C-alpha cells in the first residue's frame, strides 16, 4: 500500500522538475555540454624543444585553457587541451605556444587560427576536435 502512495509522489516530483526547472539548466544536467578539444603538434627542428612549454587556447578572444606538454615522438611534440562547457555558437579558436626560453614566458607563435561553425556544420555536434600542426 505504501508504494502506491509513494510512487505518485516520486513521479510528481520528477514532473515538477521538468515543469519548474529552468529549461536550459535541466538540459545541461541531462546532456553533455559542448567541448572543443585541441591537439597541437609542433615540428621540433623548426621550433626548438622544451618540456616546459605550454599552449594556450583562446576561444573568440577569451583565453580559456592552458595545458602543459604531453609528449613527443622525436620529430613532433604534442599538447592536448580541452575547453568544456561551451554554449552553442560561432567560435574562433586560436592557439598560442608559450616558449619558456627565458623569463617571463611569452607567446612565440600565434598559431593557425581556425574558425569553425560550432556545432551545426561540424559533423560532431557537441564535441569538436581541432588539430593544429606547426611544421
Amino acid at each position, binding site marked *: 500500500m505504501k508504494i*502506491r502512495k509513494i*510512487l*505518485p509522489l516520486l*513521479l*510528481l516530483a*520528477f*514532473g515538477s522538475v*521538468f*515543469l519548474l526547472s529552468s*529549461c*536550459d539548466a*535541466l*538540459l545541461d544536467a*541531462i*546532456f*553533455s555540454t*559542448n567541448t572543443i578539444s585541441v591537439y597541437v603538434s609542433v615540428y621540433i627542428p623548426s621550433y626548438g624543444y622544451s618540456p616546459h612549454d605550454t599552449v594556450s587556447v583562446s576561444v573568440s578572444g577569451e583565453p580559456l585553457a592552458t595545458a602543459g606538454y604531453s609528449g613527443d615522438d622525436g620529430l613532433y611534440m604534442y599538447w592536448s587541451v580541452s575547453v568544456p562547457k561551451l*554554449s*552553442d555558437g560561432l567560435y574562433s579558436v586560436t592557439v598560442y605556444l608559450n616558449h619558456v626560453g627565458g623569463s617571463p614566458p611569452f607567446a612565440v607563435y600565434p598559431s593557425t587560427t581556425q574558425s569553425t561553425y560550432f*556545432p*551545426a*556544420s561540424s559533423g*560532431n*555536434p*557537441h*564535441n569538436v576536435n581541432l588539430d593544429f600542426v606547426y611544421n
Partner: protein
Amino acid sequence: MKKLLVPLAVVALLALAVPAAFAEWELGIGITPAQNQESTDPGAVDGILNFHVGYNWSILYASWDAFAMPSYWVYNATSYIDPVHGSYYPGADVPGFLNLFDVGIRIYPRPFIGYAEVGTNLLYLYGGQIYHDPYGNLGVGVNGRLGFGVKFGFWGVNISGTQVFASWYDLRAALDQAFYHGNTAELTAGSVLSLNFALYF
C-alpha cells in the same frame, strides 16, 4: 464532411457504451535507449527521458508528454530538404524539450491496453527559443502516436511509437521527399520509440 462525421459518430457511440467509471488519470515516465550508437559524438548517444500526464474518459484519451531530446534528435527532426528549391537545410543542433499535446482513443481489453493519438507539438530549443519553421512562423508541429502495453491495477507498462514533425513545413518537406523522390527516411526522421511506466488513479 460525411467522411469525418462517420468516425466521430463511431467514437462517440463507443464512448457512451463504456461506463464513465473508467475515467482515470495517469502519470508516467518513459525512456528511449540511445538510438545512434555508431556516432563518434558522445553527445549523440544519449537516451531520451520523458514525463507523461494523461486523462482517460471511457475510450477517449488526452495526454501531455514532455521529452528531453538530445541534439541529434532535434537536428534530424528539424533538418529538411526544401520542396521548392531542393536545397538541404541543416536543423538546430542543440538539445531541447519536445512537448506533445495529443487526443485520441484508448482501449483496455484487460490486462492489455492500447491507444492511438494525434496532436500538436512544440519544440523548445536549448538557448531559450521555441523552434520556428523556415518562414519564421512559430513551429507548431504535428504528431501521431500508437501505444500498446499491459495494465495491472494501479500500474502498467507500455511501448509507444510517436512520429513527430517539428512544424507543418517539415511535414510538407518530408511528404515531398517520400512521394516525389522516394526518400522515405525523411518521414521517420522525427520518430521516437519509448518504453513507458505509468500509474493510474
